[in-house]
């Protein structure tokens, strides 16, 4: 069953969400999500690399010998990461500084490898780029959710504006490393609970009217 072009994008956000569903790319999703702006910046940077590398790898998929495809993927992805890093250093130096070591580390992000291996190596250029866009948007959204929760609870602010009122006492724990682990754990658990509920409902429906 062939997916439509729109589904190619939306699947990366919903059923194949890289962070919450496939549990890929956890290092940056915990490390840079102390504020929403950092999370969004990371997401956009990774999306750029995803679209470019997926498109490029799909373009040359016919001439890559299958045995050495992983080193070739690594080089192509690292090249785009270097390009992105140089652009970032020039246009958004503050963000580049805030993300720090995690900008070059996009080169070893599992999401990008997973999309290259699962999708770009087998599909056309257009579809691969859309798949990259979808996975990138899913990653950005996940980071934004994590970062938003952590910034609101840990700092009482969102994008630097106070949103929780004067009397709010920030829970400092949430912007510390431990808070990242907790929030991620509870979000994944909540999604799993939702899945289990939906499954139980389905089986009840099936049992009542076969």
């Amino acid at each position, binding site marked *: 069953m062939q997916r439509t072009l729109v589904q190619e994008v939306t699947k990366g956000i919903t059923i194949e969400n890289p962070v919450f569903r496939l*549990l890929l790319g*956890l*290092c*940056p999703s*915990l*490390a840079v999500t102390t504020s929403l702006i950092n999370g969004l910046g990371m997401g956009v940077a990774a999306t750029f690399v995803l679209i470019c590398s997926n498109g490029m790898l799909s373009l040359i998929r016919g001439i890559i010998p299958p045995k050495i495809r*992983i*080193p070739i993927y*690594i*080089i192509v992805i*690292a*090249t785009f*990461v*270097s390009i992105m*890093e*140089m652009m970032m250093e020039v246009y958004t130096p503050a963000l580049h500084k805030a993300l720090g*070591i995690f900008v*070059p*580390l996009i*080169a*070893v992000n*599992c999401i990008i*490898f997973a999309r290259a291996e699962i999708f770009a190596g087998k599909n056309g250029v257009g579809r691969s780029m859309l798949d990259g866009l979808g996975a990138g948007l899913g990653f950005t959204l996940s980071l934004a959710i994590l970062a938003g929760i952590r910034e609101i609870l840990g700092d009482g602010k969102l994008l630097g504006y106070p949103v929780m009122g004067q009397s709010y006492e920030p829970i400092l*724990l949430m912007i*510390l*490393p*431990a*808070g*990242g*682990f*907790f929030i*991620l*754990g*509870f979000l*994944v*658990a*909540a999604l*799993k*609970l939702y899945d*289990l509920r939906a499954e139980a409902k389905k089986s009840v429906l099936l049992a009542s009217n076969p």
Partner: protein
Amino acid sequence: MEIKVLFMIIIYSVLIQNFVLSRFLGLCPFFGCSQRISSAIGMGCAITFVMALASAITWIVYTYLLDPATSIVGFFTEGNGAPDLRFLRTISFILVIAVLVQFIEMFLQKKVPSLYRALGIFLPLMATNCAILGVAVLNVEGFTAIGIHTKLTFIQSVTQGVAGGAGFLLILILMAGLREKMELVTIPESMKGVPIACVTGGLMALAFMGFSGLSF
């Protein structure tokens, strides 16, 4: 002076700014390879070894090929000076690490096949482990926590590699021990697997925050 700096690097990398719990590097093996203590030890040792070797080799590559101040490429350009190749940092480091991992994979397959089978998919995945590329990048960017803002020296780099790996090994073993115990506990269905591992990791990170009192 030198010894004191090395000691500080070790304390920071193992305890205060642990690679897994405080810098969030290498979370994939932390969650994926911590089911059994035996495989955790194997994985931790393999990563420590690769981190130490990668620190040494990437430092040499960066210093003598990429950095124009110390590069030996200048000898071959007939007095035009060495080109600034630092923009190739990410690509060259990742290639060096991929080759190293391939080498270790071949070595283990031949000499220690039991460990090779136990590590499975996580062995080739080490080439894309953030902790290894992370330590290589941190080595050339300096260790700001203890006030070194320039590139580390060779000895300091290797020390950071070994200490970072040791911290990783420590966390992996602790986590595997906790998870072996957790198999006997009743956990809500939705919290099983990764969620409970995340919460455990969070509690461990809280505990490790206590070590920040060691900073000097």
